[in-house]
């Protein structure tokens, strides 16, 4: 069983992803943006962070940067994106691929989610 943090500004997305992960027996935490995610992750051993890229307050790129800078073990990062562009006109999926350990293109089914999570957890935190 792993501790997985799901970050997305749309509650329905978080809930549907959390539902699949809980079925697998994982402990799931939810956050609505990067800042909330950092607060939750601080001082807690998180094995995997599944994060959206385009979010208010703090986006996925900044969240990933700050998680990587934090002391201690860095969780694996699974980025997810439905496409779209940052204000810099960069394609969200391209940015996701450059910054995360793995990427899922929204919407994905539960099998795709489980396969990606399984494969990242086997690699373990760094």
């Amino acid at each position, binding site marked *: 069983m792993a501790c997985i943090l799901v970050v*997305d500004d*749309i509650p*329905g*997305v978080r*809930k*549907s*992803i959390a*539902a*699949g992960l809980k*079925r697998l027996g994982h402990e799931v935490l939810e956050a609505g943006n990067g800042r909330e995610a950092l607060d939750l992750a601080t001082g807690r051993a998180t094995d995997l962070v599944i994060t*959206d890229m*385009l979010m208010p307050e703090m986006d996925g790129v900044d969240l990933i940067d700050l998680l990587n800078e934090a002391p201690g073990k860095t969780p694996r990062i699974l980025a997810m*994106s*439905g*496409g*779209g*562009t940052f204000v810099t*006109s960069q*394609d*969200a999926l391209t940015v996701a691929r450059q910054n995360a350990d793995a990427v899922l*293109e*929204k*919407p*994905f*089914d*539960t*099998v795709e*989610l489980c396969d990606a999570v399984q494969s990242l957890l086997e690699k373990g935190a760094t």
Partner: protein
Amino acid sequence: MFRSAAHIWMQALDAAQVNITIADAAHPERPLTYVNRSFCETTGYAAEDVIGRSCRFLQGPGTCAETIAQIRQSLNEDQAIDVEILNYRRDGSEFWNALSLSPIRDETGRVTAIVGFQVDVTERRRLDEDRLHSAKMEALGRFSSGIAHEVNSMLQPIVSLPSLVKTALPEDKAEEREWLDLIEEHGKTARALLRKLLQYGRRNPAAEAALFDPCKALDAAAVHLRPACGDLINLVRNQTLATGKTVYGDLQSLVQSIIALGENAIDAMPQGGTLTLAAHLTDGTVSLSVQDTGPGVDTRYRHRIFEPFFTSKPIGLGTGLGLALAQSHITSMGGTISLKNHAANGACFTINLPLAEPDTAAPSPQFYTA
């Protein structure tokens, strides 16, 4: 003096760079009584072949019936008219004709003749269509990438939750299980459509461009198309292009384009037939073609098939994006895509790509960007 003036008039008409015709208005068929040299050069007909005939010989299968009716009505009402009409040369090739017809009246006001001025505007229309196509693609790119993030997120629960609910359902809930399958299936269809749309919005596919063997693209497309052919359609390869030749561009985009053409071909042969994937090399150009034995593309649609969202398929069966996307991909590789209807052999789409030698500089592709 009069003869000389008339002679100069005739010479002037013949020297004109526009096509000029004069037809007899007194006769119901309105036969031609004069055509100038430019008309003969444009259409390929000699004056003696056409004098005495109605101008209808310029029309063909792709000529718009509404435009013809419009012309007829104006002439019946003794009115002048300006239209653009698809006409055919003697050799069967098409050209767009900007046609201006005006009645000529005698001193009593009776219309005795109709003078026609015609200009071949094929090239101008092609440029207009290209510009319109680019503008549509650009708008589509902006629109799709604008909504993609939101809509894909909305689809997330629809695509992922049904399978979880199914595992929680008791064994005897077969009907409810089917409903969940339906939700999941429709969610995934929406996902596929949105992903196709998003390909317009992606910037600069040049990032993926490389030199590759076009035979590989045909092989990959054939692997994908074979299961869709089923028992009724025979998939045939006709290849004189040797392996090891290279073109420059994105391999996956070319594969997708061939698949889109192949899927259309399969849809055109519901009763079965032959799907031929061919690859040839002529004068430094690689030709990849997809030919079916269906009814061919309806001539009314031939000029519109590459427009985004144009489809002749029933509602729900075609997005109208396959050919538009294929054209966009092929143009970005510096190539062209064209259609030829074979009288008895269905439709044949041909992709022409410039051969790229590994040691030569890559061509600079053009892109539709959002």
